[in-house]
């Protein structure tokens, strides 16, 4: 049987761990709030942007041939999907671990999606150290690594990637841009998403009753689309990054909460064992004294 001393030591060690997990939980809660604020304020903008872009693009496709509108290369970006020989995928994970199934989930989604493609046909942009490790292990070609990006730096990342990807699309280096990330629902629930940003998915166009007729694009379709579409890509990427950031902190908060609870439970069990042992030794001593007195 383990000695009293050993059990005391273990209790102390578990208590220390519990303090660490509690502190981490609190830090995550603060970070979660910041990310979530940013995400919640971007969502209406991103949603409107998507509606507008989809309805404009959907209508152009439905009503007139792109040739007739005399569109430039930028604007064409979204209009003619071509065979996806090479794709660029932005994989968003976290820099640090201890966040439950956060990274595992996004990797699983990445696996399911990327396994259907040839290795040579995929170029990855990786955000977060865990994503870098994943790409290395799987042997994917990595275009760019983004490590230790703070919340305020996400905007720059999304701009950089969208500019670069647009250029690559025009030179024919890539045929599509995807993003894989954890979508944030609440601190307890996130789910991984694979989204094609361009060419735009028009299978389910956001048609509402409000925009039944085609928009006039002023001053001319080319100028308007060339201004709108890059902003759309940027916004979508930024949203993915923010969703992932909020998800990460939410997942870590939940994981650390669970860890703290488990530690509490363990302390309870150990204390019980400790008390039993102590009581046993007291009982022993009493028996000894009593039998000694009887003799």
């Amino acid at each position, binding site marked *: 049987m383990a000695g009293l001393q050993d059990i005391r030591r273990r209790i102390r060690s578990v208590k220390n761990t519990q303090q660490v997990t509690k502190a981490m939980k609190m830090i995550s809660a603060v970070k979660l709030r910041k990310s979530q604020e940013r995400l919640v304020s971007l969502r209406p*903008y991103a949603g*409107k942007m998507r509606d*507008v872009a989809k309805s404009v693009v959907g209508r152009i496709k439905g009503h007139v041939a792109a040739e007739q509108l005399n569109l430039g290369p930028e604007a064409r970006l979204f209009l003619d999907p071509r065979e996806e020989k090479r794709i660029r995928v932005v994989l968003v994970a976290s820099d640090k671990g201890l966040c439950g199934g956060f990274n595992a989930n996004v990797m699983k989604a990445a696996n399911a999606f990327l396994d259907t493609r040839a290795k040579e046909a995929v170029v990855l942009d990786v955000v977060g150290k865990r994503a870098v490790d994943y790409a290395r292990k799987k042997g994917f070609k990595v275009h760019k690594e983004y490590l230790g990006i703070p919340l305020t730096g996400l905007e720059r990342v999304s701009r950089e990637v969208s500019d670069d990807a647009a250029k690559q699309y025009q030179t024919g280096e890539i045929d599509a841009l995807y993003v894989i990330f954890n979508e944030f629902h609440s601190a307890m629930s996130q789910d991984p998403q694979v989204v094609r940003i361009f060419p735009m998915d028009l299978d389910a166009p956001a048609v509402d009753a409000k925009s039944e007729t085609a928009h006039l694009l*002023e001053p001319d379709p080319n100028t308007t689309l060339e*201004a709108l579409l890059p902003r759309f890509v940027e916004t979508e990427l930024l949203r993915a990054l923010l969703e992932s950031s909020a998800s990460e902190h939410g997942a870590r908060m939940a994981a650390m909460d669970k860890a703290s609870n488990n530690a509490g439970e363990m302390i309870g069990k150990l204390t019980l064992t400790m008390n039993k042992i102590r009581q046993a030794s007291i009982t022993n001593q009493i028996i000894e004294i009593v039998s000694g007195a009887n003799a």
Partner: protein
Amino acid sequence: MPEPIQLEVVTPQRRVFSAWVSEVSFPSEHRGYYGILPGHTPVMTPLGNGLIYYTQDGQRHWLTVFGGFAEVGPDHVTILARDSETVDMIDPTQAEADRVRALKLLKEAQTEHDLADAKAALDVSLVRIQASGHPGGHGY
């Protein structure tokens, strides 16, 4: 009678404004001010810097807008602004200080890039000053 146009102004940072109004006008990037009344034909256009005017309960109000897009339908105007502020968010003394500083930068500008930056800063400060004072008759 309820107002006929739903005006919504959103930026990447926040939802600035959302309400029903009777009349809207906004500055486009290429074609000056657009005046929107109910039943307007659907239009989509990039925005310049300036003021968005709207009429609510017969009163005229305004917001600043710096770039972005406007999407117009028969019963709604959606502004996807790069940035936008309500009047109470503007500090007039700060805007004036910004204007003076921008003018100074404009004179000292060496490169094309500096010049463009100074011009943009001046533009922003002028719009803010206009918004915090009594705006002129743009669009009306």
